[in-house]
């Protein structure tokens, strides 16, 4: 039997008030706590429905629990133990508690039918570790690493941005990313927008554009 308010299985006492069955906890939350310890108090309350309450305060062992006393003939596990622990004791439990296990499987996985491999047979899978593209920055760094031998005489810092991404005589993509935009000339900004757009760095391009636009409109862009 379960509490009609919270759905919890009743463990030791049930309290039935106005035809509704509560667990102790819910009865307390509903404000009936003062009657739980000593039914005599309740009986003394002129506003209570005496007969109904008094007849409902029963010990759990007097109640019919239906299937909850179901026990596995092999390992002795009861249905209540299975419901509490979520584990079964032996293979036979799968037959004994079949309905409850299937319900639990549906609850957890939305399915109870096996679709996997058979014992000692390999699963038919060709799953391989997928290639996840690096960020643009990492991809660029890899290109640079490969280019280093050809440009060994150049300082490493100079080779950080790919040549294709640098403006003609202007700043490289890396330099643009790190630059304080307020310090760049209009010409640098214009070239920078092209470099950023070519490299698909649209956020950078829009920041450069906004800086340039702000200057042309006479704003200080602070």
């Amino acid at each position, binding site marked *: 039997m379960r509490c009609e308010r919270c759905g919890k299985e009743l463990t030791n006492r049930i309290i039935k008030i106005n035809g509704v069955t509560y667990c102790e906890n819910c009865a307390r939350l509903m404000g009936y706590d003062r009657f739980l310890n000593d039914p005599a108090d309740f009986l003394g309350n002129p506003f209570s429905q005496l007969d109904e309450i008094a007849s409902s305060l029963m010990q759990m062992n007097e109640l019919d629990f239906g299937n909850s006393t179901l026990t596995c003939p*092999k*390992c*002795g*596990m009861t249905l209540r133990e299975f419901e509490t*622990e*979520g*584990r*079964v*004791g*032996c*293979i036979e439990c*799968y037959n004994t508690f079949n309905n409850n*296990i299937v319900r*639990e*499987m549906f609850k*957890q*996985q*939305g*399915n*109870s*039918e*096996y*679709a*996997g*491999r*058979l*014992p*000692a*047979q*390999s*699963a*038919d*899978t*060709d*799953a*391989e*570790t*997928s290639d*996840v*593209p*690096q*960020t*643009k*920055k*990492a991809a660029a*760094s890899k290109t640079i690493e490969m280019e280093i031998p050809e440009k060994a005489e150049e300082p*490493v*810092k100079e080779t*950080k941005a790919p040549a294709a991404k640098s403006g003609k005589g202007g700043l490289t993509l*890396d330099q643009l*990313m*790190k630059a304080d935009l307020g310090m760049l000339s209009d010409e640098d900004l214009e070239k920078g927008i092209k470099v950023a757009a070519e490299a698909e760095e649209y*956020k*950078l391009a829009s920041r450069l554009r906004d800086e340039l636009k702000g200057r042309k409109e006479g704003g200080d862009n602070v």
Partner: protein
Amino acid sequence: MSEWYMNEGKDNDVVLSTKACIVRNIKGYNFMPRLDDKECKSLLETIDKAIDKNKYTGGCAADFDKQTILRLTRLQILGRESNQMATPERKAFYYNDDVSLSIAVGSGEHLTVKAMAAGHDISVYKQAEKEALDLESKLDIAFSENYGFLTSHVRLAGTGLKILYTVSLPAISKTEGGIAALTQRVSQYEWAIYPFAERGEIADSDVYIISSVNTLGVTEDEVLKKGEMLIADVIKAERALREEIATSKKDQSEDIYGRSYGTLKYAGMISRSEALQALGWLRLYHEYDDSGDIKVSCNTINKLTMDILWEPDAPSKKSSQSAASQKYRAQGIKKILKGDD
């Protein structure tokens, strides 16, 4: 031979490790909760005979010395929970040379075959399956046509397979609503994500575990392919957010990155959560640091992260916060960082 997590894994800027776990039970024995000591001893002996001793070392956990227990905890064979080594006479652990493959007996189910690899590497499934097939051919495994491989935990019945990716997500964690959005995304794949913490512990890092859920109604192949799609999404999202943070808040990120490195390298005492926070920042900005002043590889960041995460003491326990343990931790970090210089 070097231990498994020292290897350079794929996508190791985000994925710390990939694991495949396959659980099995043996017919003729009750499941672990209902197995008496005599039966348990017989089970351990039966399984011991089926284990390939040319490949695996180990045995009954009661015979392990303290050093072995600490090593196996650090290498993620044993959990860090204090009850892990309760009743050691009812458990056995076998492992290969680099401890990437292991077979646990009596830990929840009769058999747990586990394969682990550094970084993003789904080939762990094939490795675990190979070991499981070997045991299935030698032992009488509990199997039903309706429910597949029968387990004591009903949620594992079916394939008995779990795939777990351990990921470090500093950028998603620092983005408002990032983890909530990711959780939603993960559940769309019918997988689960949870912070790295064992029972009773406080989650004190940006490390998460992304795990498969379904063992019924799906084939192993479907689980693996879904997992690969999901982890690719997670890696892409984390990298994109790192780029966003590193570029939009460059000065702040660079500053915290430098400070974090300094703390790790020079602190005389360091708490677990402080160390993990600092490692999160190193990971986040590592790729964007152009100064060249800080020399630390992704592998080193991963090794440090895993060493700290798998410290035998849980973060909720006083011992891991004691001065002695903070000092010991700081010394260990310094030593590893010195090796990278």
